[in-house]
């Protein structure tokens, strides 16, 4: 039923057909949060993404539940995919060119059939080039794009960021590109192909590593959790780690506040940190200085929890943060007071889900439904019939 008082998201009246794999699933999720109608067409064969652990009580992948929340799920068996694409403004796919051609979904063909369609092609390596059809996974794309080489301890193998971050890296760039193309579509009536390479998107997130090589001739290597500097880094506390920034670039930051905090906790040895060498770059960057600071700070920190140290340090102007676990975040006073987590229903199970990355003062934004409900078929475009079965969280 159409609700005339329905609040409209900024992408109201945009229809998206989502045929992606896990590499592209976050893009449609972001667009759905912003008010687009996202129709997820699932293949007839069972999708492994639905069973990837960890699982809900009913056996549904929680990763899948997060990525698909708010989308309208239909089975390929129940719809004519070509007709549904014909009603869409945006089409999302995330496979290489050969796989797309095999499904009749090559962007050259889809946009020729539908001149007012923006086909956002997210693919591992892009639609062209010698690797365009190489198989890929999150790990291999982090490797190919250069981010994996920057992560890890020097004496161990390079190590992956948690989760499928390539879906986030490619997905955020893809949503940006999709919206640029949508603006163009809505002003000219002309569709087009967006050719996004996940490898290139990863290569766009190397901070300054490529510029270091270009300008100073040095190749950045993995260096654990950061450069060696006394007062900065990870420190053990009663229930995990805190991340403290007591200096940057060899210069102390809020040093008197930090030292006084330690002295007030009865750590007399902290007096030594008031010596003049603690203002000097070369000393601060020595491993000896790091060792001394660590032993003093951890003596104070070992009796405090992450949260206690966070609040006590920050109240004194010290830059300190908890190394938060997901459970810590669910209990975070900041996120709780701001109502960040919203309940969604995953197969009938009510779970708290992170809210959207941004808030609009004048429009609703966020997970539009919990349960990715399996619906029978796609409605024709703008027929005045159902707003579909999504329920507001």
């Amino acid at each position, binding site marked *: 039923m159409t609700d005339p008082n329905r609040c409209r998201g900024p992408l109201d009246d945009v229809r998206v057909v989502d045929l992606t794999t896990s590499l592209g699933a976050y893009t449609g999720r972001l667009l759905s949060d912003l008010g687009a109608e996202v129709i997820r067409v699932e293949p007839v064969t069972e999708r492994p993404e639905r069973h990837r652990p960890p699982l809900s009580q009913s056996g549904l992948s*929680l990763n899948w539940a*997060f990525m698909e929340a708010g989308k309208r799920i239909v089975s390929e068996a129940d719809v004519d995919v070509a007709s549904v694409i014909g009603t869409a403004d945006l089409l999302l796919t995330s496979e290489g060119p050969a796989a797309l051609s095999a499904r009749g979904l090559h962007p050259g063909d889809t946009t020729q059939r539908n001149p007012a369609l923006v086909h956002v092609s997210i693919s591992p390596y892009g639609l062209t080039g010698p690797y365009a059809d190489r198989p890929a996974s999150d790990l291999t794309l982090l490797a190919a794009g250069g981010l994996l080489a*920057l*992560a890890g*301890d020097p004496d161990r193998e390079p*190590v992956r960021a948690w989760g499928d971050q390539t879906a986030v890296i490619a997905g955020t760039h893809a949503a940006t590109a999709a919206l640029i193309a949508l603006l163009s579509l809505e002003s000219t009536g002309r569709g087009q192909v967006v050719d996004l390479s996940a490898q290139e998107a990863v290569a766009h997130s190397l901070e300054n590593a*490529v510029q270091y090589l270009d300008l100073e001739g040095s190749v950045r290597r993995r260096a654990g959790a950061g450069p060696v500097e006394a007062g900065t880094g990870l420190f053990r506390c009663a229930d995990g780690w805190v991340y403290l920034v007591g200096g940057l670039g060899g210069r102390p930051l809020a040093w008197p506040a930090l030292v006084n905090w330690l002295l007030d906790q009865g750590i007399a040895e902290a007096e030594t940190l008031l010596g003049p060498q603690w203002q000097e770059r070369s000393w601060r960057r020595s491993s000896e200085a790091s060792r001394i600071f660590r032993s003093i700070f951890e003596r104070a920190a070992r009796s405090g929890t992450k949260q206690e140290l966070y609040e006590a340090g920050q109240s004194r102007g010290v830059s300190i943060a908890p190394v938060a676990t997901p459970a810590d975040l669910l209990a975070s006073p900041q996120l709780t007071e701001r109502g960040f987590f919203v309940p969604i229903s995953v197969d009938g199970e009510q779970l708290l889900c992170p809210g959207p990355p941004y808030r609009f003062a004048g429009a609703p934004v966020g997970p539009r439904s919990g349960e990715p409900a399996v619906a029978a078929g796609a409605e024709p475009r703008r027929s005045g019939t159902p707003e579909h079965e999504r329920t507001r969280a």
Partner: protein
Amino acid sequence: MTTALPLDGVRVADFTWVGAGPFLTKPLADHGADVIKIESRTRTDPIRWMAPFRDGEPGPDRSGYFANRNSSKRSICLDLKHPEGRRIALELIARSDVVANNYTPGTMDRLGLGYETVRRRTPEIIYLEMPMQGVSGPHRDFRGYGLTIAAAGGLLGLSGYPDRPPVGTGTNYPDHVPNPLHGAIAVLAALRNRRRTGRGEYIELAQLESTVNAIGPALLAAAAGHSTERMANDDPIAAPHGVYPCVGDDEWCAIGVFTDQHWKALTDVLEAPALARRPEYANPDGRRNARRELDTLLATETVAWNADTLAAALADRGVPAAPVRDAEGVLHHDPQLRARDHWVRLDHPVMGPSVYDGIPYRLSETPGRLRSPAPLLGADSRAVCVDLLGMSDAAYEDLAHEGVVG
């Protein structure tokens, strides 16, 4: 090339600085928006003083860290604490579609440039703030640097080896992926909404919340009672799954075996039929249970291979594989990135020809492009004041003499 760019006609008054903000306005600038950075001569953007520098020599117009995130933009210098500086800023905002800033909460209000002030004069403005913790809540004034957001947002603690302290991504990941790109998405969605409704928008992007959204599945899992731990390169399904040593110093090949076909292909390529015959490795559960043992066995085989050759041989057989590229590898030795012309060399007036990250996507009909290298500090002060805001040359000279502009 002079093709019309898709964001031609959009103007951004860009008060962002340091890391995340400028990477938000960069895709807008590279697709045609007139992004005008409002900078200060006395309190220069700290990232202008962050390495790397051309030839290792520091200077406000020599940083590659700054340059890479500020292509296609203009720069003006204003003293925002001077009434005339503030007036010029408001004039510029009145001729803009978007205002973006990543100052600490309350800063824009103190400068007389807060949303309520701006909205009174320019009601259709799209105004984005990106405070670390948000503009409300008990931690709104907490401060942080470097990896603070990655730590407080959960990604740092989840990334690394299970038997060691966390290591994260080795970069300030939130500054380069979720925070700026979520911001760009929000601004573009608001622009689209304004074209249909005429309404402006106030957008608040709390960097903490944006970062937590990027690990959303871990939060949903925690809410369902699962504990999520660091798992190095392990995968919930695939095994073997990891990076394996190859010929050379610190050379690795990333490999993921998701199916029995992948396993068969891997053992064929490595010419290890003995492995293929072991019944305990014949199915995914068996391989996952034996993954540490398999990692060791595979490493003794891969170490005789060149990483590129091994990745190519595996990819030919349908197995996800790639060499672990470092900066040298992605810049100089990757055939795919070269074929796609990923890296862009722009001739900067001080730094000379320098490498910028390319746009990771191409729009077939309205492609973006890096139109110009990063602006010198204040390079466009006169052009913006005189040509855009209609100030007389004499008035400009007076204000420049007073140090208000220029």
